[in-house]
């Protein structure tokens, strides 16, 4: 905005302001009505949902599924998607939000046109709608992701229906046993400290998978106390990961 545009704005604004009504009581009444609505909404939410307390924090569990409050779902979703690319994870989870915040912070300094009507600011309109859509999509998909403790994988097409059923049973055992806390399998699980298991059967024979599950390298726990049925599902599942 140049000096003439600034003066034109201030002049128009002072006229509009003069044509307006006093803040008290007109605006105060509206604000007060809104405050009552806010209060009622908060009270109703509190009465309907309360403030339930989950189980006590236990730093030794390895299978708990962390979930943030809903307004951080977008960040949670970015983290979940980017987790399998460790090189870019910090960039996605820290870098992108930081850049967005800086862009938001500096908005009045790079958007200096005097135009205020949104229908005449196509870039601002597009950026605003894109941001809202992206945040809504990330929040929605962050809210609807399955538990990180379940393996979401289709059985390989080479398996017979019976083998596919064993594959699914094994995937369930993997989820229950907390393997994903330390291992990546396909798009699931945390990268590290354990190795990636997506193609483990290509390098490790079935017998060695079973013996590693019984006598693993610490800190991995031993699974020799699993029921034999579940243990065989687990071994079969892992040896199908070609």
């Amino acid at each position, binding site marked *: 905005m140049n000096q003439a545009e*600034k003066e034109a704005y201030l*002049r*128009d*604004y002072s*006229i*509009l*302001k*003069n*044509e*307006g*009504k*006093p*803040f*008290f009581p*007109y*605006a105060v009444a*509206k*604000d007060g009505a*809104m*405050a009552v*609505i*806010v*209060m009622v909404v*908060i*009270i109703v*939410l*509190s009465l309907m*949902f*309360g*403030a339930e*307390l*989950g189980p*006590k*924090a*236990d*730093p030794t*569990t390895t299978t*708990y599924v*962390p*979930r943030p409050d809903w*307004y*951080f779902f977008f*960040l949670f979703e970015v*983290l979940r998607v980017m987790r399998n690319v460790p090189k870019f*994870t*910090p960039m996605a*989870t*820290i*870098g992108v939000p930081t850049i967005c*915040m800086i862009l938001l*912070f500096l908005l*009045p*300094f790079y*958007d200096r046109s005097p135009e*205020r*009507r*949104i229908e005449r*600011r196509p870039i*601002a309109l597009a950026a*605003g709608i894109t941001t809202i859509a992206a945040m809504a999509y990330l929040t929605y998909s962050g809210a609807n992701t399955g538990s990180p403790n379940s393996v979401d994988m289709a059985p390989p097409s080479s398996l017979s229906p019976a083998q596919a059923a064993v594959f699914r049973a094994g995937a369930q055992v993997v989820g229950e046993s907390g393997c994903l806390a330390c291992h990546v399998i396909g798009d699931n699980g945390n990268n590290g400290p354990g190795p990636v298991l997506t193609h483990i059967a290509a390098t490790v024979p079935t017998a060695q998978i079973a013996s590693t599950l019984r006598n693993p390298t610490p800190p991995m726990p031993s699974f020799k106390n699993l029921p034999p049925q579940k243990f065989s599902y687990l071994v079969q599942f892992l040896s199908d990961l070609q």
Partner: protein
Amino acid sequence: MPKLPAPPLPKILQPKPKRPGEPSDAGALNPVEAGITVVDWLDERTALSPGLRWLMWRKVPRGINWAYTLGSATLFAFLNQAVTGVFLAMYYRPDVAGGAYESIRNINDNVFLGQFVHGMHKWGASVMIILIFLHMGRVFFYGAYKYPRELTWVIGVVLLILTLAMGFTGYLLPFDQRSYWATVVGVNINAGGPFIGPFLSDFLLGGADFGATTLSRFYAIHMLVIPGAMAALIGAHLYLVTKLGISAPPWIKPHADQDGDHALVEAEV
């Protein structure tokens, strides 16, 4: 004015009836005059009334609508958080060894209206975040961040970041599984940041690991550091809003402009 019944005083203390011809006591205080006198006394010493007049009797431009109440609604949600937070702080103990969890359980189960106030604090946080985003959307789409209100916008963005930081630090305090593990993930995200990331996570944790100091540190940040900063910044935000005036909706033009009659209106202003 209606006459109040005389107080049952002993005769000696009752005011004597006036004798005929005596001047009436016009200087005696009646309650309304006493109120005015108190305000006068305060104003003579503080000179507050011009400021109040400046705040309350300023004009708001023609054409403002309900979207303009979102800012004050956010402020109201902040006040709700402050008041309910004070009551929660009366019962909360930031003790990692189980005291924190037990104190919240006590609030929920035993304290009179405890779960209700806890719920208002918890859901008030969500309501405040929704309102602050709606308020920001209104300012963005109305172009209200433009000259001369750039600084108001910048302070508003800082308030948004501080509000999100309140959500993050507050989430840990109940110290149940959900809050503990979400915070571990959150701090790990921070630690992955470039340059200051590791220092920030060290500062938040109060050490290399999640330890006894972490919870009290989050508590102090949640109830002292950030609310103090927010209160100060809200003050600055409101000062600027009052000083610069509430922005008019961008589609509203002055009446005079539509007639093309500038000179007359300028003379009126």
